[in-house]
């Protein structure tokens, strides 16, 4: 039910956090091991983070910037 009221943006953010192994205020899934900080490659105004093409806003939300 909680999932149903989440905004799309929130779902996307949490998905990216899980993918990148970062915590930005959301409770971590207990069974998910912590991952090292991902490698960030700047590509123009975008960023390649563990292969994901992300915006600067994404990185701020994920506390990677």
């Amino acid at each position, binding site marked *: 039910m909680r999932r149903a009221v989440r905004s799309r943006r929130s779902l996307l953010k949490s*998905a990216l956090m899980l993918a990148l192994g970062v915590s930005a205020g959301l409770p971590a899934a207990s069974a998910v091991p912590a991952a090292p900080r991902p490698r960030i490659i700047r590509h123009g105004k*975008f960023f390649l983070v563990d292969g994901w093409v992300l915006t600067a806003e994404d990185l701020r939300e994920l506390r990677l910037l």
Partner: protein
Amino acid sequence: MILDAGSPDRGAFARTFDICIVGSGPAGLTLARRLAARGLDVALMEGGGFDVSVESQELYAGEIVGLDYMDLDVVRIRVFGGCSEHWSGRTGVIPAHDFLPLPQRPMAWPITKADLDPYQPEASEIFELDLAWQPPDLALPQAEERFRNIQFRQSPPVRMGQKYRDEIAANPRITAAINANLVDMRLAPDLATVEGAVFRSYDPSDPGFTVSARVFALCLGGFETPRMMLNFNSQKPAGIGNDNDLVGRYFCEHPSREMAAAIYTHPREIFQDNYSPTPEFMEREGILDFILRVTWRDRTPKSLAESLKGAVECASPFTESLGAKIRGGPRGCLWGGDEEFRRLRDPQTYPSGTVWMACEQSLVRDSRVMLAEDTDVFGLRRMRLDWQLAEIDYRTMLTGLTALGAHFAEQDIGRIRIPDWLLADNPRLPGGAGAVHSGDWNGGYHQMCTTRMDDDPRAGVVDRNCRVHGMDNLYIGGSSVFGSPSYVNPTYTIVQLALRLGDHLGEVLPAGGVVGEVGQ
């Protein structure tokens, strides 16, 4: 008539034809029908039968070196109708800018799109397409001009051997044979004129028979055409048409595979988009052409097993983690059965998909078809394939995917992940040899450019009319003559070229004429 080369009926070939066409795939069948309609006397020779057989397919076996490729005796089908008997039916027109030379594409076509455009209506009729002409691009809102949203057309798909078998059999201008395996070509003393083509059936004791014609056309595809030309070296040691060591070189595929995982911000109502770079984007980035097929997994899976095979959740650490988060359980692609699977795959709460990419390959001289030491049942040396890519090919992949990721983010469509292997310092397509149907293969069954078209004999095997440089009466039909490969599925272009070749030969081979030099 269509006769069996192993039967006494083959006496029907004991005369001189206007043209002998070797190979009954999309190029050969189209050329035969075109020339017969002009009143010319056609011999149409097919090495396979009406159905797939082990003894026929086995002739395609060969060696693979260089990049992994699909098994050579599986990736093509050697039957009446050729590879139209197993193609997907996807058709498109090569865009005008893919015919032209660019700094990053120094070798291009000697002809333009306008030379092939007149053949769109007839090619579309052959493939039973709804529209005679290529439809326009779809609208694509974007913050920066990077992509076109192009449309392909879908043939049923037409199986040309099945569609035209009765017509060929009833055509009084065409004498066709199945199980007729080309084993040699005999040249006149000038070494510039083919006098006869020698064929054998599968009977080991068959001494073979010769077909004489004023003109010969090899329509055997991007692998067999160069293999035959290199093998026929009894009179010309380097092989026929190989004075400049070009036969078999510049082998191109459409490097292609599922390249990226995608998570979408919103569910989508469409099934698929096809993004291709604008000419301006290609020029600005110094890359080649490509197609990005963006798939939206917004449909109920057909079956659990089928869907699991390509499930996004097991495709990357990210999607696996996402599944774990939603389930509230541990990571790992362990499923709780069909009910759980369908809940997780609900596209309204979990919109996801994949990005499949196919690229125009650069022309690499050492990417080539050669001869192996091993021989087939007819004593002809088998094929050795050395497929190679260049730096620009990987840069095209990376640039295209990065631009798509930027477009997705700008338009709030979602995010995509570029695979690790492409981000490596020296990327190389992952292995996938033999995995023809696994989704992990690297090509499109498209073998091109091995006898490429160029006005300069030092750069191409055939001229703009598909005539082999240095030969008066030998022509080639099929994808081996492509000047460069574009990203477009090749079958439609193969038929356009065959229709054009038919018109050319119809002009230089007047019906009822005598044998003579064809010239230009």
